[in-house]
């Protein structure tokens, strides 16, 4: 920001855009807010740690697998999502948002976007990936969902109805993916391991055997969580 008020109109952009080096600017802001007693380094460290390591798609995968495993739970999850997710020890009602769970079926495929910014069910999936926040995804998901799914290597039959949810308010959407055939013998833990982040956004589906065995939400989440437990 300019130090002279009259500069603001024509120079607004140049002074505000963080090209002066975002790292430097953040550092300065943190120092200033610390001086004023508004933040403290330890609390910020904890927040970063939470965002980086504690929350993530492994939470959503647990929820989805439990719903596959337990029909009564699934019913509660679809009708009272905040309460049902809380049963698993996950608090979703933070920063004023509320969860909605969308069930994929052989006939209906749900996918989630936020065209205006990048609203995302952080409590159950962690921070959004860059592609979710990209202009490419935000622009096209509502007008060409099948084309977007194609970018993800997913081609759904023409008779499947696609429902795109534009997160324009304080509802946060979690897609409950379809349980793949041939998984009847798997344990709940094994089911968790199949579920990918993208399948819970609706840009992917769960496959069995898994397409990317090393990149499921559960394995990512687990390794991160175990590193930072205790």
């Amino acid at each position, binding site marked *: *920001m300019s130090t002279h008020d009259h500069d603001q109109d024509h120079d*607004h952009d140049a002074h*505000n*855009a963080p090209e002066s*080096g*975002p*790292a430097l600017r*953040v*550092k*300065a*802001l*943190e120092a*200033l*807010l610390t001086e004023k007693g*508004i*933040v403290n380094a330890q609390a910020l460290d904890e*927040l970063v740690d*939470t*965002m*980086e390591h504690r*929350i993530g798609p492994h939470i959503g995968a647990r929820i989805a697998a439990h719903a596959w495993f337990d029909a009564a739970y699934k019913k509660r999850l679809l009708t009272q999502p905040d309460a049902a997710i809380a049963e698993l020890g996950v608090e*979703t009602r*933070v*920063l*004023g*948002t*509320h969860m*909605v769970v969308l069930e994929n079926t052989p006939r209906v495929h749900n996918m989630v*976007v936020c*065209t*205006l*910014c*990048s*609203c995302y069910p*952080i*409590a159950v999936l962690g921070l*959004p*990936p*860059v*592609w979710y*926040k*990209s*202009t*490419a995804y*935000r*622009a*096209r998901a509502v*007008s060409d969902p*099948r084309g*977007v799914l194609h*970018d993800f290597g997913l081609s759904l039959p023409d008779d499947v109805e*696609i*429902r*795109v*949810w534009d997160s*324009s*308010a*304080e*509802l*946060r959407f979690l897609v409950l993916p379809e349980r793949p055939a041939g998984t009847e013998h798997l344990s709940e833990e094994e089911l968790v391991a199949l579920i990918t982040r993208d399948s819970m956004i609706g840009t992917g589906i769960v496959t069995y055997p898994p397409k990317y065995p090393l990149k499921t939400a559960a394995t990512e989440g687990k390794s991160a969580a175990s590193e930072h437990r205790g």
Partner: protein
Amino acid sequence: MNGVHDIGGMHGFGPVVREENEPVFHADWEGRTAALMRSVVTDRLFNIDEFRRTIERMPPASYLAATYYERWLYALQALLLEKGVVSSAELEAAVSRAREAGAPGDGYGDTASDSAQTSSADASAGLHRRDQAASPQPSGIALRYDRNYKPRFTIGDKVVARNMNPEGHTRVPRYARGKHGVIRHDWGVFVFPDTHAHGQGANPQHCYSVEFDARELWGPDHSVRERIYIDLWEDYLEADRAQRSATPRQKSAPAKKPAPTIKRMSAASTKKGLVRVVKKSGTTKAKKRAVRKR
């Protein structure tokens, strides 16, 4: 505002590119920015709608060129200045001190490739509550009112998203304005962003999930098998008076005009007709539909 952020339906941004093994943050300063933003919103120096409103006002070229956390940083800084939490002189002095203390490479620097895929506001960290213990002020933000407000619409109502172009913050995307849809869910009563973003009060009102056919939004060459659901506050909507008759959910064509015969029928005669049909046949619903469609 009709800003650059409102990009639903725009062309030219290319394919969606997925990064394999993507880290949560691409540089340490990104995590720091996210944590700062979250702390400041939590402490109610400003609210989430003010944050979004500020990002939207970023000059369009800068918005498109900036990465996600650069936009956050921009808004964070602009709002702290606007609210008088920090002055520009203080801020510039702090930047100078930080520069003297060391190049931005040390401490938390621009390390990894700050992937230039763009994005925007919000994504306000909704975190595990038990993980927030260290945060000075656990999030007590309530944007939903668990009190009774009489809803203006009920599920199944046909509505039109208002053709409105406010210069201030709004959450009705341009691609929906003037379009016809159906109320599918009532999410309850929420703070109204258009006023909340500008210090004009909470103005609580019902927020609904409104279903739009892809053909209604994008034209007849789009698939009948695509529907878009947008969460819209009451003040964004008006009753669709042109379509009084409730057509069944399944619509094979984007035909918005109700059958003229029905329009001319009075409510009473419609009712009578239906009653007669019901008496004649057991398949009430199918017959009702048939009558309405005629």
